[in-house]
């Protein structure tokens, strides 16, 4: 039995995801993301879910007798799933602190994550897209207490200095690769995230980005956005067609995030399911 099948089995038997999350000390909505394959659980959590699905009453009862774990070291993978209150507060804090660092510095930015369009109260790390001409954003973020690592001129990874590894998020400086390179061409709507009104990359652009990149869960997440009517397949189709005019590439790096043939194939599958 795989993790998704275990969750589905429990839901069919009347267990809510919220009650399971409480029993497993998981962040709210984490199991929803596991169910929709937006995140990949650890082996330990997957194994526990399979055991619960086999005998929910006994295993859930046994879980209530488990003592609160001693806080794990911050580099432990398991700590990314079983978040402490401090970690949840840290996740809330990141959006607020990023916005507080960038807005006064006149940086053009927007928060970006598929999870935001599925669950605005997500505790998953949320990426940030910054206008390529606003590189002073890096200084503002460092001054605000963020550590930043360089991957390429278009990608940095950041986290608060005192926060665990699993709160790390990406900073994108899109220049030439659509659709993120087009984010600032039109006004960006603000959205409420963790109690703060901040600019957020729209669902259609986010879905396009997913279709075009080689993340294995991309198609399922877009399917979910379509099912929730957050995006429209015809609009996706039109937006994808606009990219046909761009030259072909064999660059491995580019194709990881801009594979038009793959996007077309994925969109075809999504249309077939409608």
């Amino acid at each position, binding site marked *: 039995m795989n993790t998704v099948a275990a969750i589905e089995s429990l839901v069919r038997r009347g267990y809510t995801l919220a009650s399971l999350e409480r029993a497993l000390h998981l962040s709210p909505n984490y199991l929803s993301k596991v169910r929709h394959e937006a995140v990949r659980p650890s082996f330990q959590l997957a194994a526990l879910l399979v055991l619960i699905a086999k005998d929910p009453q006994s295993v859930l009862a046994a879980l209530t007798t488990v003592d609160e774990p001693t806080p794990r070291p911050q*580099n432990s993978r398991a700590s990314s799933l079983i978040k402490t209150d401090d970690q949840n507060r840290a996740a809330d804090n990141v959006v607020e602190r990023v916005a507080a660092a960038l807005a006064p510095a006149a940086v053009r930015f927007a928060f970006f994550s598929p999870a935001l369009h599925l669950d605005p109260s997500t505790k998953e790390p949320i990426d940030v897209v910054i206008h390529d001409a606003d590189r002073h954003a890096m200084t503002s973020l460092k001054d605000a207490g963020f550590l930043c690592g360089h991957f390429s001129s278009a990608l940095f990874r950041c986290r608060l200095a005192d926060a665990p590894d699993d709160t790390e998020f990406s900073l994108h400086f899109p220049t030439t690769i659509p659709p993120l390179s087009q984010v600032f061409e039109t006004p960006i709507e603000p959205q409420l995230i963790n109690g703060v009104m901040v600019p957020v990359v729209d669902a259609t652009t986010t879905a396009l980005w997913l279709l075009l990149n080689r993340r294995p869960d991309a198609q399922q997440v877009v399917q979910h956005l379509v099912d929730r009517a957050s995006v429209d397949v015809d609009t996706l189709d039109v937006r994808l067609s606009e990219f046909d005019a761009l030259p072909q590439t064999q660059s491995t790096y580019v194709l990881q995030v801009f594979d038009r043939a793959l996007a077309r194939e994925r969109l075809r599958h999504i249309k077939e399911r409608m």
Partner: protein
Amino acid sequence: MTPLDKDLQKLLRLCAKKLDAIDAEWAIGGATAMAAHGYERQTKDIDLFVADDAREELIEHLTSKGVAVTHIMPPAHYIARPPKTKDLDKRLDLLFPALGVESLGLMAARRHTIDGHELPIMPIEHVVALKLQTDPIFDRDRYAKDAQDLQELRARGLIEPHRVRVVLEDVSDQAALDRLHSLLSLDHDIPTPRLRLR
């Protein structure tokens, strides 16, 4: 070659031990490979190319040892950092190619001694071919950086055109072959003692 950072060495050895134990195909690429071949430039990260079939086992192994593994672009790119590091540039980039020059480079890797350890290094012709594949239209900043590396490699006589050409022909990348031709046509004054033009 300048010794690798001690924390990264430790992390690299952890990966190497596991990958060798499961007989995985793997190789060090990027700036560390260029340094092993004779062109050193400053870098803090190490690129580890690993055959995709060893991905899950390696990540699970690192995780079980308390190493945080973060995904950058799954399933192709993850990172592992030494525990408690505050320097986010200090990391192992774990790259899992499915096809292309990176995969060919894995299969052709040869062992070199680095800091007293025999480690598989991607052949220089594959490192060069990868840099030539960078797309100047879609990826102009990386292209500028890679073009600089290519000029330095060429100046040191580390580019053997026929070997690079074979790699690029294997993946049928005509645009990269054209860029190789341009690279070799430029700056005839640069000393290229080992350069063998066909």
